């Protein structure tokens, strides 16, 4: 009886002592710095560049074998600009990225040192392809994609790398659209289970579309480089 009790106790303990792998990067809200460059072949729009919208709203999480990303950054940035937009004080809308977008992936691997696997991406995003001033005047497009995510632990430091390809579509104005992304996360544990993460990210998008106030079919390349900062929980 005593052996059985010990065995059950050990089993329950082992379930709780199971290696917890991963990090929960909570840019909720987070900050980002960087730039976005939009280069079009439309003479009216030309080429324009602007600083990245500062506040973001995103959760990027790896726990055990699962990768989950929820991103509302462009939507949130738009909301934070409401007072300025109501007073026509915005020179150009900096809403770039996800209105509401997500990624789901499965990471293969054993132990808590390294894991890697594929992920799928789906959501509604936006890019300022019309050089608009008001964030909520921007049009949305659907993004669908595939990616690979890898996770590595180095003592108090955790690194994550993400690479992927996405197709963009919106029947009303986009005829062709695709893009790639490269993201890295460096997270460092500071106090108890919490720390900070830095996410340098590069996005490259190509669109063939019809601008809002011009019927000319236009090609645009949107390139952005941002560095994000947020709080992180370590599992």
């Amino acid at each position, binding site marked *: 009886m005593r052996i059985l009790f010990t065995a059950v106790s050990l089993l329950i303990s082992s379930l709780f002592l199971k290696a917890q792998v991963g990090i929960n990067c909570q840019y909720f*809200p987070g900050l980002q710095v960087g730039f976005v460059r939009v280069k079009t072949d439309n003479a009216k729009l030309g080429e324009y560049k602007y600083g990245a919208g500062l506040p973001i709203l995103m959760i990027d999480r790896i726990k055990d074998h699962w990768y989950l990303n929820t991103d509302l950054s462009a939507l*949130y940035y738009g*909301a*934070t600009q*409401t*007072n300025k937009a109501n*007073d026509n004080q915005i020179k150009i809308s900096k809403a770039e990225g996800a209105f509401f977008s997500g990624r789901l992936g499965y990471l293969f691997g054993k132990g808590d040192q390294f894991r890697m696997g594929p992920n799928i991406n789906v959501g509604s995003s936006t890019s300022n392809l019309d050089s608009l001033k008001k964030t909520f005047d921007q049009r949305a497009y659907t993004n669908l994609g595939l990616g690979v995510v890898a996770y590595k632990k180095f003592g108090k430091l955790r690194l994550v790398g993400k690479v992927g390809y996405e197709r963009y579509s919106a029947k009303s104005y986009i005829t062709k659209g695709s893009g790639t992304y490269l993201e890295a996360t460096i997270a460092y544990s500071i106090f108890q289970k*919490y720390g900070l993460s830095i996410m340098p990210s590069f996005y490259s998008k190509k669109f063939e579309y019809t601008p809002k106030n011009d019927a000319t079919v236009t090609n645009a390349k949107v390139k952005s480089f941002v560095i994000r900062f947020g709080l992180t*929980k370590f599992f």
Partner: protein
Amino acid sequence: MKKTRYKITLALAAFLATNINAQSVTWKVIEDDPYDIKNFSLAIDPLFSEFSGMNGYSFGWGARAEYMMGKRIQAGFDIRTGFGTKGYLISNDNTRNYFYTEGSLGFIFYNKDKKKNVPIILSQTTSGNTRTTVSIRGGVPATVRRVTSLRGGVYQMTNSLSYKFLADSLTTFKGGASDFKLKDSASNVNFSGQYGGFASTAIFGGINFRKIVQLLIDVDGWGYRQNKRYTDFYIDGIFAPVVLIKDFKTPDGTTYDVKYDKISYFGWRMGWVWRKPKEQGFSAKFEFGNRPGPKAPVKDPKATVPVNFNNYYATLTFGLYIPLKIKPVYKGED
């Protein structure tokens, strides 16, 4: 006869099969300690929204902190600033953006636990318009900790104020060539559709009821199930010695001192706060009440002063919180 008996048996079996309520569930308690908590939490709220009679709505971001120091002291802090305030224009100095900050301190006079049954949900499924919930009937005995405190504090706020919510007979614009009311003798509304600014500093005091449950069980055949909560419910009375309506400046540079003859210096509020006792996650706070502000006009002189519904408000804040264990921590009676 045999056929009838067969039908009755079948019907009875079908009835029993669809109405079995007997439940045999065994479980093992893994965790049941409402004192093993993180007694400090810092919440960063990316979004709050407030609906009020003064200006309609405001939304923005904020931060909250809450600290239970040892057995007897409780402290709180809350700050919010709007990034979408109805009626507020950055370029119009007559208006004010939404801003709210408060600090409070409480004395805990009850900090004990009792065994009480709490609900445990085993499974929940939704199909169409039907949700099926399987739970342990009668609940599971858990240690429920209750912390009750008397608290008091100070808040300071600004907001935009719609003039259409002010009473004509009580609003006077002093300055310029002559003083005048909100409506002139021909019933034309002066500064129609305009927004002004409102500021208030108040003290509040009330009672806070906190409930902490931290039950984790291993149910045979179901796995781990939990009932964990760290919730607050509070009721406060508010007294505001400072209730101000901002001066109004016209485009020609004339400044009017906006006077409102009857101010209600008292108000009240109640609210709820939710988080988990130990784990990091999302926290929410909902509050509604009636803040000190302009009184409603008395239409019938014999009637008592009615409640000004424009002073009512409801706020919902939501964000991620970081819980920490910071000394001193009360671990209960030995």
